[in-house]
């Protein structure tokens, strides 16, 4: 990269609440307890959506009605990032990269149609399906379901129009969204960008595929370390988060007098096949080659571990490798212990938490943020305090 990239704004909403304060409080307290809903989606505990005063970020009721909770959460968090970076006036040429899953389905309609038609002969079910959907689907729901319409709504509600890209692919999509947004700034394609994603944990339509993959933690909540230590498959406790980062070239931030919250020194992503020697641990070690020379004693690690054992074991191995070959590692925190695993929001949320942590008295000057996707995808980022970081 040629031009340093700063994080100059953070929009963060999780089950803990919105903005810096509740997240800093949780980071500061090793015994912090997460906010949980252990009954609504039993046997799966989830970290629920906090109450939001939507009117503050999505002033038009018409806009709110065109969205479902996932798009609203992301649009809300994007607005928080703009406010946090005092960047409302810069949206016309601001670039946007969103990591997106799918929007909410109409659960009641799905259940009614499945219950009625599944027992019928397939040919008859297929004919009736057309009728039930044609009469039952709401026109606005299609747009609320479309993945790229989170970005579309951010453009419409907040006026971000420099460019708009939506990446798909779970955790990895978000890491690459941040990586590419930052790389484009670093090479001079624009000076300010918004990157992030959103995830709603309390959704049966999303729990279905993850449950099918055997990926979800069941029963009473347990911290990540305990889930990884049990000799079992572990499991994810899904979290709810909207997380957007305002990324800006240092020169642009300085020119407008914007305070940098942290320097995004490096983002690196990879995707091991996770078979044979092509392991997540090896993939991440290769990524770390670029970061290792920059690490200094006492760097903190903010782990994006999902709670699932397989990637968790790989990450533990990687961190051990890094300890052996690099400077002394400082404290390790699992973001999933605070806010759950938030898939497309996880990597930006973890960068946001890292950037917030750097601003605290006595905090390490560097945070290494890890991302080991549940199924695929590895990512590392180095976030540094601006006054003292390596250059």
């Amino acid at each position, binding site marked *: 990269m040629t031009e340093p990239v700063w994080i100059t704004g953070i929009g963060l909403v999780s089950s803990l609440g919105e903005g810096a304060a509740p997240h800093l409080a949780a980071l500061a307290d090793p015994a912090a307890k997460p906010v949980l809903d252990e009954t609504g989606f039993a046997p799966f505990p989830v970290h629920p959506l906090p109450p939001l005063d939507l009117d503050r970020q999505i002033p038009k009721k018409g806009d709110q009605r065109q969205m479902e909770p996932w798009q609203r959460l992301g649009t809300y968090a994007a607005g928080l990032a703009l406010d946090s970076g005092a960047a409302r006036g810069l949206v016309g040429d601001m670039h946007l990269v969103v990591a997106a899953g799918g929007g909410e389905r109409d659960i009641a309609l799905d259940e009614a149609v499945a219950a009625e038609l599944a027992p019928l002969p397939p040919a008859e079910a*297929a004919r009736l399906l057309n009728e039930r959907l044609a009469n039952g689907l709401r026109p606005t729901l299609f747009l609320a379901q479309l993945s790229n*319409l989170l970005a579309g709504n951010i453009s419409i509600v907040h006026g971000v129009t420099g460019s708009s890209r939506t990446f798909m692919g779970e955790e990895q999509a978000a890491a690459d969204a941040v990586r590419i947004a930052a790389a484009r700034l670093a090479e001079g394609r624009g000076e300010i960008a918004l990157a992030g994603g959103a995830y709603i944990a309390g959704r049966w339509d999303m729990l279905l595929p993850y449950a099918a993959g055997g990926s979800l933690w069941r029963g009473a909540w347990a911290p990540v370390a305990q889930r990884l230590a049990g000799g079992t498959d572990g499991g994810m406790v899904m979290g709810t988060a909207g997380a957007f980062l305002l990324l800006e070239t240092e020169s642009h931030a300085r020119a407008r007098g914007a305070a940098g919250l942290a320097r995004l020194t490096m983002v690196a992503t990879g995707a091991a096949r996770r078979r044979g020697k092509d392991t997540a641990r090896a993939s991440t070690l290769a990524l770390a080659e670029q970061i290792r020379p920059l690490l200094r004693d006492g760097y903190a690690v903010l782990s994006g571990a999902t709670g699932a054992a397989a990637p968790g074991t790989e990450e533990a191995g990687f961190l051990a490798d890094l300890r052996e070959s690099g400077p002394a590692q400082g404290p390790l925190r699992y973001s999933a212990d605070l806010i759950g695993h938030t898939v497309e929001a996880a990597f930006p949320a973890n960068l946001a938490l890292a950037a917030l942590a750097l601003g605290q008295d006595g905090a390490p000057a560097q945070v290494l943020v890890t991302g080991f996707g549940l199924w695929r995808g590895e990512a590392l980022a180095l976030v540094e305090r601006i006054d003292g970081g390596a250059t």
Partner: protein
Amino acid sequence: MSQAQDRPASGATNVPRASGATRDHLGRPLVAVTGIGLMTPLGFGVAESWAGLLAGRSGIRSITRFPTDHLKTSIAGAVDLPEDREGAPLTAAARVERLAVLAAEEAVADAGIGGPGDFPGPLFLGMPPVEVEWPHRFDLARHGQGPEAGRYPAMIAAAEGRRDLFETCLFGGVGERLADRFGTRGAPISLTTACATGASAIQLGVEAIQRGEAAAALCIGAEGSVQPESLIRFSLLSALSTRNDDPARASRPFEKTREGFVMAEGAAALVLESLEGARARGARVLGLVLGCGERADKFHRTRSNPDGGAIIGAMRAAIADAGLEPAQIDYVNAHGTGTPENDKMETLGMRAVFGDAPPPISSNKSMIGHTLSAAGAIEAVFSLLTIRDGRLPPTINHETPDPAIPLDVVPNVARDAKVARVLSNSFGFGGQNVCLVLGAEPAG
């Protein structure tokens, strides 16, 4: 900011770039297209698809893959595959993957690059969102117990152990399997920008090469969403043509009686390389991606701002990125969906960018329909073929000109023209607009 195989990013300085025949006006590496692959409603492969397009053939037909009772629209540019079984067609995720594989195999072979399963660059895959579909839900509900069988908790219980369902429906699943198959480097990037998706995939590949992050890129746009729920969703937006009785004449871009687009499927793959790298390995160069432009609209979820600002901005940005003036564009490959709104706005954009004498513009969608996530990539390939053969594909079904559309739309019949540079437009729902400028290889 880099992927695993990159040069170290720290400490890299802005080295002065050599100018010359392999650099563009901004000193960036010129990006060549050295391989193309197509799957369209007109045929499997580049040759069949292009021949059909030049012949003015329509690939739009009545849907036979599933019952169309109660559907307002029962026509599409569906691409049926040998894997489709009677009563059990492929799901969208599986079809997208299969179409992408077929197009990419053709493109990689065409480029003669890398080795089997060893493509020397990243994958950028434009595709639609995929999800658990009705056949899955019915299957799970049938395996459920009792009166609650259709409820999500019961379907989830029935889904236990269905790792296949999980991997099929992950958004990253198709890209991962393609990356595995073709041996692309680094994390595969899957993306959606609605109807501009295919163009965005190419743009990301171009940028990776321009940044020096990759020497080559495999860029794919794929679509396979002709299934009942998708058709109904688009119908509810009043976006689709309902000329069910006359499928071949249903897609009528720029024509007075147009009343909606026709959903279609397909895929295109392009192998991009730095021109320098392509020449060094003696590759045949099909053409260049000279410029990319994008602009988001903030006006409305499905409509452009009436001032056309974002469309005009994207077109101008692409031309400027290529270091060209509008007058140097010889032909425009239209977004041209055949909705009243799009074609009106695209006309406005054409007149704003090119003035009173815009170049000819034609819509591939008049023949293949709107391939949605694949469209930008398919139309980029057709743009390159237009340059290669010096022949403009027509806009068919042009029966009653629309006086509000004063454009040369190459009505009904292909024609010869010397074409060195094409602007290819892609405008998406949600206001995501991407334009590409494709050009002939400069004399070396």
